[in-house]
């Protein structure tokens, strides 16, 4: 059993083996990074090979009969088991494909910024991807929980990567909130589910029907369980549990990309959708009359987060709040509980992934090339970094939901679902938030392309820790005259070493080429998704089919 080579299992093994190899080849950076890319490619191939099976017309019939892939019996009666279904497939595909691009980008970023502990970074990254694969293919709640926690653990070193007091504090917040919510609420919910139903497998329609029918479980208890799950999945960043996301901004940009686009937050909303669909079952929730609070909670999160984003000067922080609001789109869609809205949720997971990763790549490129972290410093930067800022524009459009980008498709489905279910509140929220999105993204684009760059002497530099500064104290920002030349010189040396030319403040061009390539690719995919979204829509349709009796 342990060495079964069926594709879902292989999808977990490949990054694990990759991590091992990367750890072993840490001394030879080129080999190490080649291995990273190779592993990522292999993984994508493996994951893609599963797709046809999921798209097969008789998929649900097979799903109902096929036994799960059981790895090990952890506690008597509780297995670590895998099972493929469309939602997980979407998630796995996104993660696998973005890993390649992210690796490419990481190579540029890590070398460009001469970061320490690069091997640890790549190893943890691969381990995080392995956890994501496990999460995507989880066959029951227990497995979901196991990989959820593994993901938290493996991303922790990435968040704390820099090892400064600031980074450690943020990483503590990250770990504290994620572990706290998952252990206190999610685990309690899972065990309660097990106690009430004796069953933790994911089934279309949920597992509670029998318990509800027999009366051993009442609707209010079901509602309580639902609350436990929704707040237990802290990675979905539903409003009071969102603090970790801005805190985690301290991490290097590829990590932010991983957190926001590839793995962590996606794992959160993915789990939310999965739990709603396969553990509770939309019909059960509707008939028990539970869960509608989630719509309002998510709606509030969307608006509040967008509003906060308006006032963030730090670029990554602004993106982080944008992520929080975008995640709640997925949650609100799932909470609508209609088949169409669940499709919207699935599509938005994908659409947001591509858009957001583009934005983060762009932010990272700007930092690498110019060490700028604040929105207010970006005047005229579009002229020096046309590719980067071009891609940024595409990502921003996708966030706002304008065609021809991926964001439009998912927003369209969401609005249709809201229309269908006649939730005016949702429609209002979507429209308002679109305006707010526009409100905080468009000024950046405006500054980048239509404002003149400042004269070189007034250039505003951040150093290592600058973008972590508290937003409340913008005046504390160091300026070039603040006596940090020592630091600056170090950086210059490092850069000159990498770039082969002297880094002159204010005279930067594009970031290193791997980064540019990566971010162009993601931007391209964001656009392509608008035109060629068949695969995603097919998978979402497959998911929807499973819900219909």
């Amino acid at each position, binding site marked *: 059993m342990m060495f079964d080579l069926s594709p879902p299992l292989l999808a977990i093994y490949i990054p694990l083996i990759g991590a091992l190899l990367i750890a072993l080849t840490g001394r030879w950076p080129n080999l190490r990074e080649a291995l990273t890319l190779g592993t990522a490619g292999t993984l994508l191939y493996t994951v893609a090979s599963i797709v046809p099976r999921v798209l097969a017309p008789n998929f649900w019939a097979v799903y109902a009969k096929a036994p799960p892939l059981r790895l090990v019996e*952890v506690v008597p009666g*509780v297995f670590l088991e895998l099972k493929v279904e469309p939602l997980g497939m979407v998630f796995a595909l996104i993660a696998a494909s973005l890993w390649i691009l992210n690796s490419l980008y990481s190579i540029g970023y890590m070398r460009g910024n001469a970061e320490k502990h690069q091997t640890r970074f790549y190893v943890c990254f691969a381990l995080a991807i392995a956890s994501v694969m496990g999460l995507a293919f989880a066959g029951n709640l227990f497995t979901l929980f196991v990989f959820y926690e593994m993901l938290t653990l493996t991303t922790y070193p990435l968040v704390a990567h820099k090892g400064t007091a600031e980074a450690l504090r943020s990483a503590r917040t990250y*770990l504290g909130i994620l572990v706290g919510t998952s*252990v206190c609420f999610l685990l309690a919910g899972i065990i309660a589910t*097990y106690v009430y139903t004796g069953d933790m497998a994911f089934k279309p329609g949920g597992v509670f029907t029998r318990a509800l029918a027999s009366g051993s479980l009442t609707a209010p208890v079901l509602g309580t369980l639902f609350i436990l799950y929704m707040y237990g999945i802290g990675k979905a960043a539903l409003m009071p549990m969102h603090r970790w996301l801005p805190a985690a901004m301290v991490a290097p940009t590829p990590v932010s990309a991983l957190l926001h686009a590839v793995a962590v937050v996606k794992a959160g909303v993915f789990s939310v959708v999965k739990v709603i669909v396969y553990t509770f079952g939309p019909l059960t929730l509707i008939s028990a009359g539970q869960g509608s609070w989630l719509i309002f909670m998510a709606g509030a999160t969307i608006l509040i987060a967008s509003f906060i984003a308006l006032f963030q000067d730090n670029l990554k922080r602004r993106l982080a709040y944008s992520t929080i609001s975008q995640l709640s789109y997925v949650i609100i869609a799932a909470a609508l509980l209609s088949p169409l809205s669940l499709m919207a949720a699935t599509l938005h997971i994908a659409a947001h992934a591509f858009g957001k990763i583009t934005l983060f790549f762009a932010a990272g490129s700007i930092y690498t090339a110019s060490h700028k972290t604040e929105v207010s410093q970006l005047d005229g930067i579009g002229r020096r970094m046309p590719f980067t800022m071009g891609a940024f524009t595409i990502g921003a459009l996708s966030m706002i939901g304008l065609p021809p980008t991926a964001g439009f498709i998912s927003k369209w489905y969401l609005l249709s679902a809201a229309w269908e279910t006649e939730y005016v509140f949702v429609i209002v929220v979507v429209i308002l938030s679109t305006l707010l999105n526009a409100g905080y993204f468009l000024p950046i684009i405006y500054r980048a392309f239509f404002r003149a760059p400042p004269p070189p002497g007034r250039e505003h530099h951040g150093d290592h820790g600058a973008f972590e500064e508290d937003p409340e104290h913008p005046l504390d920002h160091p300026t070039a005259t603040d006596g940090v030349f020592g630091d600056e010189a170090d950086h210059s040396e490092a850069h000159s070493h990498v770039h082969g030319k002297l880094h002159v403040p204010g005279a930067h061009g594009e970031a290193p080429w791997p980064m540019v390539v990566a971010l162009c690719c993601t931007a391209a995919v964001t656009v392509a998704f608008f035109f060629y979204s068949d695969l995603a829509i097919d998978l979402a349709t497959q998911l929807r089919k499973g819900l219909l009796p």
Partner: protein
Amino acid sequence: MLDLRQVPDLLQGPGWQAHLPVLIVTIPLIFGVLTIATGKGWKPWAWATAVTGTVFYLALQLIQRVLASPTGMVSYELGNWPRQWGIEYRVDALNAFILLIVAGVGFVTTVYAKHSVEKEIPADRHNFFYAVWLLALCGLLGITVTGDTFNVYVLLEISSLTVYALIAMGKDRHRGALTASLRYLILGSVGASFILLGIGYLMMITGTLNMQDMHERLMSVPGILESRTVLVAFALLLVGLSMKMALFPLHMWLPRAYTYAPSAVSALLAATATKVGVYMAFRFMFTIFGVGFSFITMPTTLILASCATAGILVTGVTAIRQTNLKRLLAYSSVGQIGYIVLGFSLANVNGVAGSVAHILNHALMKGGMFMALGAIVYRLDRCDIRSVRGLGRKMPLTMAAFTVGGLGLVGFPLTAGFISKWYLVQGCLDRPHMWPLAGVVLLGSLLAVVYTWRVVEAAYFQEPDDDRPVKEAPLLMLIPMWVMIGASVFFGINATFTGKISVTAAKALLGVGP
């Protein structure tokens, strides 16, 4: 008279396995005493290792025998006196399991002890040290197999007395070891006296010392359970046992004792001593008084659960504030005892099974973590949070062991700690109106995250104060450490064995059928 010609037949015959229960206790006794004649250097250690290894082997044999036996238990009458007259050994699934834990941990810790003892204890008393060490094991093992209440008391005193001496051997490193030992001695003796008195009350009212007989007598004579004597006996035993297993408000002896004891002793104690105390509580509450009296007539659930809850939370917060890592782990141990007690105070199958499983899991994790600290002390001569900074690169294997053990304490899935929490939370939810206790269990995990993570952070993400090169711990420390930690991970991934045996033991204790 002695006919030596019979001896070979006996050793070869299949019958020797019948003597397993007594061999497990007497082998460390006899060979422990012989240790004082083994001389100097590595010899006492090798001797002790061989003895503990044998005991571990015998414990394995015994558990197989117990599980294979149709009655689910093995009985042995000392001196061939029927149990009413003499002393009886009675081993069921629970005993055998605890016995295996104690014997296994004892073996591994003995292997580990070599370097640590060489460094921390003057060379001219190694033979005495290992003699007392083996006698401590003998006492702990004896408590676990015996079916006679007074025998429990005597063996308890052996284990206590040896442990006092072992703790005091930390005096050369820090004088606090002496006060720790004396404080433990006084509290421990008071606790043991309460136990002795409780046994006396029970004997007076039932006229027997055998656990099984006592139980039958308490069940069969009408009115006996309502008598004030039995009530006070129960209270006395409860207080005495709580002291011995360091349940929260009576845990005062533990943190200092674990902090200042020699590293190897800390590891042994953390993994076995309090666990055996818990085992005694099982025996007295379930086997002698019976579930009905202990948990329905008496408000035991309320008392124990509140003590456990307070213990988990208060010691968790206290542990967070510690800088000395040994003290940190010691406070954590008190909290973990809280989990174990919380489990069996629920008196349902899942709760008790969680309790039994946590005895093993905690023994493995805490033992492994104390071993890691011992290795750090061995290399750095200190083990505060400042000294481990940057140690993740200098002593990668040691720190990794510590980290994995810490994850277990937190109860991350796929570590052993998770399994016990799984059962415990189920137990809390199974019992009506007890669900807030599930919250306590989970909240305790969060506190564990905090105190574990302070160390992990310091080890991996902070820069050391100086660039002194530090070598990785010697192999004889690493292997036992990783055996413990590895076992905890193994039992976290595949808890079928522990799960099954805990549930069997829990069902037997609760008398709800096999």
